[in-house]
């Protein structure tokens, strides 16, 4: 079942307040976008702890670059995705772990879920992660935003800086590629 989308906060106002040292605005930005950033990073590195560390680092870098940030009409999340993408690339360069796949116990677990269900979910995430990593950046962002973040097409228009028709076309190509890759990775069999 599709998940509920996240209502974006008033980005311009938040940025302005954060620049002026308003820590409440910083906390608001963090609370609003941390889950999206974590999901993006997680599906890139497929490691719970590394994803958590890198996500925290994304917001630290955001703070450092806040005085020079210009939105150019794009939401904060687009900027955070760019920071996250660069961090992930740096991470792979430094650790040379591009082909690293975590052990199952590294993946997130819930105390309330049945162990079998937890294992299946982790395997499914791992499989999706492998497939997503082989998409282009734009295709990956469409899948994350539309099918994991459950955002509207209009949001993708501002996020990716494309018109609706281009977004629909990109979504089509992304789903075709994802289906092929998930079939190859046997993600449907989990």
């Amino acid at each position, binding site marked *: *079942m*599709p*998940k509920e989308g996240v209502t974006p906060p008033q980005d311009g106002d938040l940025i302005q307040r954060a620049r002026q*040292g308003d*820590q409440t605005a*910083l*906390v608001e930005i*963090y*609370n609003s976008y*941390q*889950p999206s950033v*974590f*999901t993006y990073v*997680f*599906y890139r590195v497929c490691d*719970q*702890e590394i*994803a*958590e560390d890198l*996500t*925290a680092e994304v*917001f*630290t870098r955001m*703070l*450092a670059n806040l005085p020079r940030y210009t939105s150019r009409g794009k939401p904060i999340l687009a900027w955070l995705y760019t920071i996250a993408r660069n961090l992930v690339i740096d991470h792979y360069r430094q650790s040379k772990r591009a082909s690293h796949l975590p052990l199952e116990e590294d*993946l*997130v677990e819930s105390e309330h879920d049945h162990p079998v269900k937890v294992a299946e*979910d982790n395997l*499914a*995430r791992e499989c*999706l992660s492998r497939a997503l990593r082989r998409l282009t950046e734009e295709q990956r962002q469409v*899948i994350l935003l*539309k*099918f*994991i973040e*459950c955002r509207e*097409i209009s949001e993708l228009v501002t996020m990716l800086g494309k018109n609706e*028709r281009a977004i*629909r*076309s990109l*979504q*089509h190509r992304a*789903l*075709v590629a*994802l*289906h092929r890759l*998930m079939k190859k990775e046997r*993600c*449907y069999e989990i």
Partner: protein
Amino acid sequence: MKSDFELILEECLAQMRVGKALEECLSAHPAQAKRLRPLLGAAVRVWEIPIPRARAEAVQAGRERLLAEAKFRAASPSPVSSGRFSRYTKQVLCSLQIALLGRKRSSLNLALRMAAIFVIVLLATGSLTVNASASSLPGDSLYGVKRSWENVRLSMTPSQQGRQRLQEQYDEERRDEVKELIHLRRAETVEFQAPLKEMDAEHWQVDGFWVQIDSETEVEGEPETGLALYIRARLDEDGTLTALQVRIPARNQLTPFPTGVPTPGLTPQMDENPETEGSETRQSPEFKPAEENEENEETVQPTQPPGHDATQTPQPHKTRTPEPTDRPEVEHTPAATENHELTHTPESTEQHLKTPEPTKEH
């Protein structure tokens, strides 16, 4: 047609997002059902996978880290961050690049930019060459550059007083060059100006140097102690200075050196034309007649005359020998020098440049 399919795909995804079943969507679009099925199936599979979430403690730690970083930055704002410094550096380099090479679509044509680069390179090279020539000596490859630069500086000095000071500095430089060449035992042709201190038939002492006058020496003018002489001489490796040309300004044009003063304040014009204004412009307020400074002669540190052997009898061979009647009373005679046991090595010359000869008999 493709865009129609993309519209149908988006419509199905939107309906499934609010709860409609996949099969219902496919039955609504039977013509596209075959193409739609795998794509909608992929979307459903992604929706089925639980969204990964960070652990609560990790979320809290990340929030605290962000706030701590914000507090730290607020407490110690960096006036120029490394990133900003880097950008400033880039801006400076970019400005230089634009100045030299122009923008990609600059209206400056290539020839102008190349000319600007050429001028800059020329100035930089010239400056380096002039600096490198500062310590050059006669015979060095850069000596011509040194002298040319001196002439440029002289011609570009607007005030008469400034030119005079500069010329005096250069005159002293010439004499220092001769001393350095003697020390290095280098054979060169040198030229310098110096006041005449003493003279006999074969040797003249000028400001610490003994200059040999032989039959080849061209002497213009009448020598007189205290007068500034222009001397072009051949310096041998043993330190012997043999005058090739000696020019003495006419009496009514001369500006005598103050005798006994190591650094002469007055120098005559060295031009071929003695009628130039040099003798007037180089008047020094420190000028004193030679007679008034005779008592200072003891402070001069003359060299022994190179080649002035006690066993030799002086044989004057002057093309134009100074008239004996015009010759002033000089206390230093060849006979007097016979009392010296002289060595004519450059070392001894150098030594005598610094140390007065106490045994000289007058």
